[in-house]
């Protein structure tokens, strides 16, 4: 019995945890036993709002807002080290990916989600990134007021890039067999889905 009269904060409402379990690979988050090996393993841990371990704890605790706003999934570089090492066999990268996918679908206005979505769209078109098209797409998605803000903030960087010919005005050539790439992607996506169905 704790003697202090600190007010208890209501947490662990089950709705969000249950909701999270429905998103792709989200159910794996439940299996976290809070060992923290992922936290030590993660190369982006210093920049993350929450380490993967703490992030999973927030999911269990039903902290929807913190989870949805956290940069944790977005800073995941998909290096897979945590996934390889997780003692519970949780495909952490896939959980993060599933969440990103969800966020991207649900809130296209969200900065990071949008960035990711536009990046992917641009990339899959040619198999290469067209920086200017990517930037434009992102700005359009954000909508004028936000876009203006970001543009002002980033203009120095953009000008530097132009100076160093890092921001060409014309799109690059499609890679050979861009269609094949798409096929590979689709196949991989299907395989992943399949694999996770078996609970590996």
């Amino acid at each position, binding site marked *: 019995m704790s003697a202090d009269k600190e007010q208890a904060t209501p*947490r662990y409402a089950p709705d969000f945890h249950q909701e999270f379990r429905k998103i792709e690979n989200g159910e794996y988050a439940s*299996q976290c036993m809070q060992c923290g090996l992922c936290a030590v393993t993660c190369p982006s841990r210093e920049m993350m709002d929450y380490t993967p371990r703490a992030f999973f704890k927030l999911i*269990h605790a039903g902290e929807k807002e913190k989870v949805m706003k956290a940069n944790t999934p977005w800073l995941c570089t998909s290096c897979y080290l945590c996934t390889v090492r997780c003692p519970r066999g949780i495909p952490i990268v896939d959980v993060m990916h599933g969440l990103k996918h969800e966020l991207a679908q649900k809130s296209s206005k969200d900065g990071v989600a949008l960035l990711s979505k536009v990046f992917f769209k641009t990339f899959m078109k040619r198999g290469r990134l067209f920086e200017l098209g990517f930037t434009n797409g992102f700005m359009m998605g954000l909508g004028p007021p936000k876009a203006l803000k970001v543009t002002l903030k980033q203009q120095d960087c953009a000008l530097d890039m132009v100076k160093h010919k890092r921001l060409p005005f014309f799109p690059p050539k499609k890679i050979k067999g861009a269609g094949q790439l798409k096929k590979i992607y689709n196949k991989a996506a299907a395989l992943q889905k399949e694999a996770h169905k078996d609970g590996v």
Partner: protein
Amino acid sequence: MDKKWGVYFCTGCGIGDALDIDALAKVAKSEFKQQNCKNHPFLCSKEGIDTIKADIADGVNTLVIPACSSRAKYEEFRFGPGIIVERVNLREQAAWTHEVDDEDTQMLGEDLMRMAMTKVKLTELPEPWQVENLSKDVLVVGGGIAGMTAAMESAKAGYKVTIVEKGPALGGYVGKMYKVAPTKAPYDVLPDNPVPALTKALEDNPNVTVYTGATVESISGGPGTFDVKISGGADARAGAVILATGSVPFEAAKLGHLGYGKFPQVITQTDFEQLAIDGKLKNVERVGFIQCAGSRDSHFLSYCSAACCVESLKQARYLKEQNPAGQAYVFYKDLRAVGKYEYLYKQVQADGTVFIKGEVANIAGDGGKLTVEIDDAILGEKVAVQSLDYVVLANGMVPSTAFGTEPGQTEAEAEAATAKEKTEEDDIPKDVILKSDLLNLNYRQGPELPTLKYGFPDSHFVCFPYESRRTGIYAVGTVRNPMHVGAAIEDATGGAMKAIQCIEGCAAGKALHPRSGDESYPEFAMQRCTQCKRCTEECPFGAINEDEKGNPLPELTRCRRCGTCMGACPERIISFKNYSVGMIGNMAKAIEVPDEDEEKPRILIFACENDAIPALDMAGLGRLQYNAWVRVIPVRCLGSLNLVWIADAMSKGFDGVMLLGCKHGDDYQCHFMKGSELAEIRLSKVSETLDRLGLESERVRFKAINIMDYTLIPSILDDFAQKIDELGPNPMKGF
């Protein structure tokens, strides 16, 4: 028996180099008049053994084998029944640990011979003690999962069993469960409750007799001949007893701080089982399981109840099964899903159960629902988990042996006890035996098994978990130790093994653990008994009852042959055929104690044969050199130390006496439980006598050593020898 002697020296392994064997043979020949002495350079070889066997064929039946330790070459020097064999450890205790071809080493060797020859002279071949009307049946007290398993397993091995169960039906605590925790791979599926099938199997088995609604009114006799009175008038005779009375859940009424009694939705694990059986979890949405409710809490049960984590995992699965949308929470300190239960833990997590680590701070009402407030160790704040339909307290277990009054502790008796003057016996720590009304043993030392900490009649030994303080009575299941269902089933199976082994041992007239197979037993020369009751009080196994006059009534099948009674008896009326006060005393007297002017002090050592003697052997194997003044006599247990040995040794002129035995106290290592402790208590009584004789009490010392202390042997012995040297010679020398 008519002894026909043969003395067979081995001169190999350096024995012949270190010692003058002819001189040793002379001891046998001239001092003990045994002329049949032979030497062999490799006695354990086929040729050497054949020499001995040829003599046996010629009628030799008493062998003295001065060679190596009896712990070596045991198969070679095993000559079957009817032959007395005494191994004299010239190798480890003399040749390998002392200077080669040295006067002191030779004297040591000769004394080893004298001790052995004296011992053999006084040894008789034991004849097994056979009880009459021995029963091979097993009595199982308690018809829960452990008792039922023990009964079934005994029956499967071909033994008849009687089960006495207090409740109206078999099944006990587990019988009231919906399902049980898994006991086999893959460990994540909950099997159906095994009790109904087991009940039927027992009821259908012609070798099993079940008494329900019955208790044991009394048990008298001993292993092989337990006479059991069962309430309702039935009698039974049993060869061994299995105590499987289980445990009861910790009293939830004491858990008011967790809301029990205040909120009807705060329930116990038992209540939750019933809800699951009744299918009432269908509409239950949220359940919180509070682990360590009472356990791991110094206010209630300091120990961990070992089963509750797994039980709560199992119950979380019930909720999932009956209401897939339900949410379970487990509030825990450490999630103790040991071993393969890790799989169950993971499965329950996969079900969506949320685990919250921390100390529960409060349970509050929440408009018909409950809120658990917990200091969440991981989130680092106090959180409230709300809208719980039920809070289930994992309320741990208390062994059924922990309830009851202390015998002889009515108020008047307690007062009388305080008023009584402190006597010698008061130094001996009393065993804890509560009148828990389970076995009702007609034993002088109390009606139940002595218990250890927290009321569990557990074995103290890591390596011998079944060894209780009452021979032939084995505690199994949660009465012995907190454990989960799977462990209780295993425990009960093993208990049945021990019961069967006890029965077969008694039938063969042999001692049980740890002197398994020993056919000797204590004999009491009753005409000299003074009814002092020391033997009946000090026997660690409660083997000796008393008549009204205080005469000892030994129940020999209860006896473990440690000789504690022999050590306790001031009249020296207790002896074994091959081990007695007189024998050991005479061995000490046979040692030659040189005169004072020879400046060769002598130190007599009584050493525990299980730990100290092997330690001496290992010192020998490592060729560690130690003082040649010491003479070692192995004893079955230091508990058999009779003070007359020390008195005799001092008057004989020994300069010091040392007892080498096992550690005692809370973590005692004596495998006869109290032996070394009793020896040290007895020793403290000697000091006074020594002072009266004008002898320094430092001349007599107890030293606790364990089997692996062999590297310390030289320093222990040399330090003592130095101390003795400083004290100077025993003034009694030469008188």
